[in-house]
């Protein structure tokens, strides 16, 4: 997950992500939170425009989700996570 600094959106995105992992993917997820304020070059490499952006790298396909992940429905569908 790519965030920027400590904005409310970034915080709530991180929180939602954590919640998602705990609730649906117990122990099966590998989360990395990268703050592009601290590492701007990452924004280039990963082509980050919107913040926050969640990049699901595996299982394929690679998916990009933008937003604070508050829309849980979309989140689950996008990540192919069954209930």
């Amino acid at each position, binding site marked *: 997950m*790519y965030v*920027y600094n400590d*904005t409310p*959106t970034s915080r*709530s*995105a991180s929180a*939602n992500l954590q919640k998602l992992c705990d609730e649906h993917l117990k122990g099966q997820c590998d989360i990395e939170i990268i703050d*592009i*304020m601290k590492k*701007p*070059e990452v*924004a*280039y490499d990963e*082509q*980050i*425009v*919107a*913040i*926050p*952006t*969640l990049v699901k790298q595996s299982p394929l396909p*690679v*998916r*990009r*989700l*933008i*937003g*604070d*992940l*508050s*829309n849980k429905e*979309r*989140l689950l569908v*996008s990540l192919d996570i069954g209930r």
Partner: protein
Amino acid sequence: MQQVEPQEEVLGKSLTGIQGFDQITDGGLPQGRITLIVGGPGTGKTLFAMQFLVNGVRMYNEPGVFVAFEETKKKLAQNTASLGFKINELVQQKKLHVDYIYIERKEIEETGEYDLEGLFVRLGHAIDSIGAKRVVLDTLEAIFAGFSNEAILRAELRRLFRWLEEKGVTAIVTAERGPEMLTRYGLEEYVSDCVIVLDHRITEQVSTRRLRVVKYRGSTHGTNEYPYLIDENGMSILPITSIGLDYHSTTDRISSGIPRLDAMLGGKGFYRATSILVSGTAGTGKSSLALSFANETCKNGQKCLYMTFEESPNQVIRNMRSIGIDLLPWVDKGLLKMTAVRSTYYGLETHLVTIHKMVESLNPAVVIMDPITNLITVGAAADVKSMLTRLIDYLKGKSITAMFTNLTHIGSGLEATESEISSLMDTWVLLRDIEIGGERNRGLYILKSRGMSHSNQIREFLLSEKGINLLDIYVGPGGVLTGSARAAREAEDRANDVLRQDEIAALQRELERKRKVVQSQVESLQAGLEADEQEIKKKINESKLRQKVTTEESEQMAKLRKADANSAKKQTK
């Protein structure tokens, strides 16, 4: 967040270095502000923006950042490499930074609130890394294609523009034309300082490009459309030149290359920096006349730009050789520059811009366009006049003498087609066919020539291996004669002359003879008279003598008969 700086009274400007543009805007783009460039596909938005950046580095020492939303690295370099921008070089020198932002809508799912901070981070990083003063976002509309939450996008746009201004960079944002609003997504709402529209239209199969400054806050700007063209050097825009007719006028005269023509023009030739129209029907020798002028110009060591719209330069040179004028040495010395292009290939404006560029680089004393016929039939009459006005204004402003040839058609009133443009011309030379006695010869006369007294007579215009010559035409009881009829009549005249002279001589001889005759008669009469005179005098003397003798004898007798005489006398009394 930085403090927003108070708006300055005088708007600083950032020079673009794009030919013509800085003139139109009197200094370039608004410095530290955002300019929106709108145009359809292929109008040159990216090119303009890239030229702005590259010139910024090369000419004004201002590094720049180019953010491409749509083109790939390769494509961008390719498209601009042909223009000699050598982007990679500048990137390596850390004067230019190019960033490619991909927004693949299919990949993106929106799951809640977000902002575009990633964009800001990248942009900020790019600007700071090279100390950029110029930024281009091409095309920013791509974010609308990528993200669907318009409310967020618009808010972020506003934020972005404010942020750019705070950064103190001069930015260009490009956008596509929209069907209703100026741009598809209404970007013009966010850009308040400067909006430029690029237009590319096709009229009668010829493409014309025009630029218009729709908005430029705080600056006076021409609101007209300006034609521009794109070539291997990039974009060139033709500014409208002197709106006032205030170019310096001169009394210098230049020769046309044909002495007798100079004689017809008040004895000295054309005025420098005037416009001259040479018109005539096909085959009357307009090009020859024009090139003779070119030849004369080069002979005097001055440069001439000759633009032909119908023949190739080689053909022209060959043709002129046949009348004894060799143009090749001038071409070799760089005094004569010949360019050939089909007039119908480009639109009027493109031609104008091309001429502008060539004149700027060559700086000739004379420009010849041969012929302008097709140029003036391509556009509507009003357009044509406006185009020519601009061209002539521009050339006069540079003290360049301009000559145009025009083909008129047999049958139409000779002066009909040119009525629109003739008022722009200071001098008008007309070549016409004179058809008499089964022959067609060329006649030349000067229809008008401002500022000088000119001959109003028609001269016969002759082309031969020795060059161009103007002859007096024969004006006699049979009317105007030219060509072989003239020659014949002149021969006749000469013959008559000779005859008359013979006559006179004969009469004079006759007179002489008569005089002699009379003279001799007089002499003989006189001689006779003298002889008679002598004779008569002699007789008179004799008579006188006789009389004297008689009288003496009488007196003698009387003496002898004195007494008797007296007494006789007494008796007879």
